[in-house]
């Protein structure tokens, strides 16, 4: 039987209360959101927080709304809510594509957007999707709040721009015209973490790629981004040849490691194929064809 080490437990009543509780309980205290990454780690004693600060009561962080040319998702939005959101599906089909592959429907009833990003698991799917979308995150602490691009949010595996005493409160995704997006993942079995995943966002100007966003997960891509492939696509005609080439470049520049999910060359082959396919689908969606 797996039992977490002892800890004290506090329920935060507001964002400011959570920030204050973190300060009061010191550097060994941790936020718990859905708990579906943290509690398994505590059961394995890979995490032994002195105090858990529960933010499940902060229902005011559970929202999806359009504001100007952005869609804003509160940190406590559950995976299941993102998957079912009509607003999200309309503007960013990459997100329901990704959500459908994250864990299983039961885990998705608990796990949150904020917890996923803050966990910063190298195989996490939303980080790749939000990176492809060039989203920003809002972080709040005792000193006020700041906005950080998702592409600068991850400092390494399990490390992010959120310092102790701070909370991620919101993700902001820019809405762009003539833009489509898509996500695909290869997994060993239903509900498993990715062998490799890719997500693409394509903005068109006529038949030319005006801007491309390509996110990768589980393959050691820096900041979950295939930057070299994006550079190669920008300004090029949106053709299958260009997408295959972008896939090849992404596969070359990522850094997968061999593990029980497969050897390096297999993962690179998956990246090449998944990048090309998601670029095709994103482009078809940008053209209103899919």
């Amino acid at each position: 039987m797996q039992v977490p080490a002892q800890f004290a437990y506090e329920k935060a009543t507001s964002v400011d209360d959570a920030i204050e509780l973190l300060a009061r309980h010191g550097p060994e205290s941790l936020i718990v959101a859905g708990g579906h990454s943290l509690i398994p780690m505590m059961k394995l004693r890979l995490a032994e927080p002195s105090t858990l600060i529960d933010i499940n009561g902060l229902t005011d962080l559970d929202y999806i709304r359009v504001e100007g040319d952005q869609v804003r998702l509160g940190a406590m939005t559950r995976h299941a809510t993102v998957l079912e959101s009509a607003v999200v599906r309309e503007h960013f089909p990459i997100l329901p594509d990704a959500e459908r592959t994250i864990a299983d429907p039961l885990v998705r009833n608990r796990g949150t957007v904020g917890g996923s990003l803050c966990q910063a698991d190298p195989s996490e799917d939303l980080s790749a999707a939000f990176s492809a979308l060039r989203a920003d995150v809002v972080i709040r602490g005792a000193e006020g709040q700041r906005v950080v691009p998702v592409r600068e949010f991850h400092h390494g595996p399990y490390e992010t721009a959120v310092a102790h005493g701070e909370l991620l409160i919101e993700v902001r995704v820019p809405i762009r015209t003539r833009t489509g997006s898509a996500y695909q993942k290869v997994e060993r079995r239903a509900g498993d973490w990715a062998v490799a995943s890719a997500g693409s966002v394509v903005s068109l100007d006529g038949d030319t790629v005006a801007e491309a966003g390509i996110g990768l997960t589980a393959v050691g891509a820096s900041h979950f981004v295939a930057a070299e492939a994006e550079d190669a696509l920008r300004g090029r005609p949106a053709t299958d040849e260009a997408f295959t080439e972008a896939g090849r470049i992404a596969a070359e520049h990522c850094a997968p490691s061999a593990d029980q999910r497969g050897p390096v060359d297999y993962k690179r082959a998956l990246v090449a194929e998944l990048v090309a396919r998601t670029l095709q689908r994103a482009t078809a969606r940008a053209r209103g064809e899919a």
Partner: protein
Amino acid sequence: MEITVRVNGEQVVRDVEPRLLLTHFLRDELRLTGTHWGCDTTNCGACVVRLDGSPVKSCTVLAVMADGASVDTVEGLAHGAELDPVQEGFVTCHGLQCGFCTPGMLMTSRALLDRDPDPSPQAIREAISGQVCRCTGYENIVRAVRWAAEKETAEETAEKEASKEEVTP
């Protein structure tokens, strides 16, 4: 810490350690052993209960996180002596063999039908995709849930017909 949880409609108050998992709270504190405890790693779904209506894996929820919430377990599924249609479906369609996965499967199936009274076999497969059954090969579980869906739809239609007849003289 003292917590108040509405378990199968009844308020219970207990003093628990923050590290107590909801599965063990139900099984060991309340002796509701219908909720099973399997993998302990959030993979098998033997421990599924409904937390404020949503099916969740109770081995990955702290009991203190359920403070102020309602929890429904398999023990609360039947209506007195009458089985819930999903339970009847599992019996009729041979949706279980050893029965280890069954409480979790029943809770997820009930939650699915509450949301979608006429789920396709594919939707049923997706709903139970976070749960493992080592015996049935899932086929009969899907049939059992379809059976329950059809029974409930038929009952509802019959009720509507009956109320129509009442108004028309």
